[in-house]
């Protein structure tokens, strides 16, 4: 089932370019497969913060899902750099790190939402809906 963006004012639903960042191939595929939004167009995936920044510069995504524990550059540092490049980017952190201090730090760096692993498809879609609602 796809979830459509509502267009109560008659305008076409806005589309968003999506980038997925996670060092696990399984998680990247899972997020891609489970998200149910017609208005999200996947522009690329990356396995660490360094590759994510390079991909971000090339593809200019609007929405990013971001793991935190990754090799080379972690998600917290990557969030700060992406927000510098594009302050309007919407970032959903998807991480196993479950302490409040990490969630607060991610939000302070510019993340817009936080979803803990493991997650259900429903939790993922609710978190993305929250992200693109504004």
């Amino acid at each position, binding site marked *: 089932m796809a979830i459509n963006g509502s267009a109560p004012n008659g305008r076409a639903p806005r589309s968003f370019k999506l980038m997925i960042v996670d060092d*696990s191939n*399984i998680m990247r595929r899972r997020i891609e497969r489970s998200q149910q939004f017609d208005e999200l167009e996947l522009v690329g995936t990356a396995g660490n913060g360094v590759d994510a920044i390079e991909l971000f510069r090339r593809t200019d995504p609007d929405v990013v899902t971001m793991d935190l524990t990754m090799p080379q550059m972690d998600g917290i540092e990557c969030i700060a750099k992406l927000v510098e490049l594009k302050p309007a980017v919407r970032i959903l952190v998807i991480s196993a*790190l479950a302490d409040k201090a990490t969630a607060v730090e991610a939000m302070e760096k510019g993340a817009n939402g936080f979803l803990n692993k493991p997650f259900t498809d429903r939790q993922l879609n609710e978190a993305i809906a929250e992200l693109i609602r504004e």
Partner: protein
Amino acid sequence: MLQEQELKTFVEGTTNYFEVAAQQPASIGSPYLTEGSPAVHDYTGIISISGKREGIVYFTAPRAMLTVLLMKMQENDFSHETMRDLVGEVANTISGNARRDFGRDFIISVPSVLAGEKPEIPLPPGTRSFVIPINWRSHSAKLVVSLK
């Protein structure tokens, strides 16, 4: 040495992982203490812990169990690389979730993975390991927690 409440954190993290990621609860056996490195299965994902605690947490499972777990996750790639990815992700998720109780100074590494051989996992000197037996469907796996 792990306190009872800390051990409970890992038991709950393991239970939660299977309930949510595999959509099928695992039966967790009674944890027990052991000297040295417990035997491992086909694939082992290891997380190094630093900060306020030091040691390792690892998840070890047979290929057959990981195959079914991947199927339950709607995954259709059952390659060696995907098995390695999965054990690393399970170890990472359970260890990361433990920060809910241990706090952010419980610093976890990216996963390292051992497969194929039957290695001795290097334990930090002076530690003993808690083994948490995991039974899921017809398969058995272990979470091993060895912390100072």
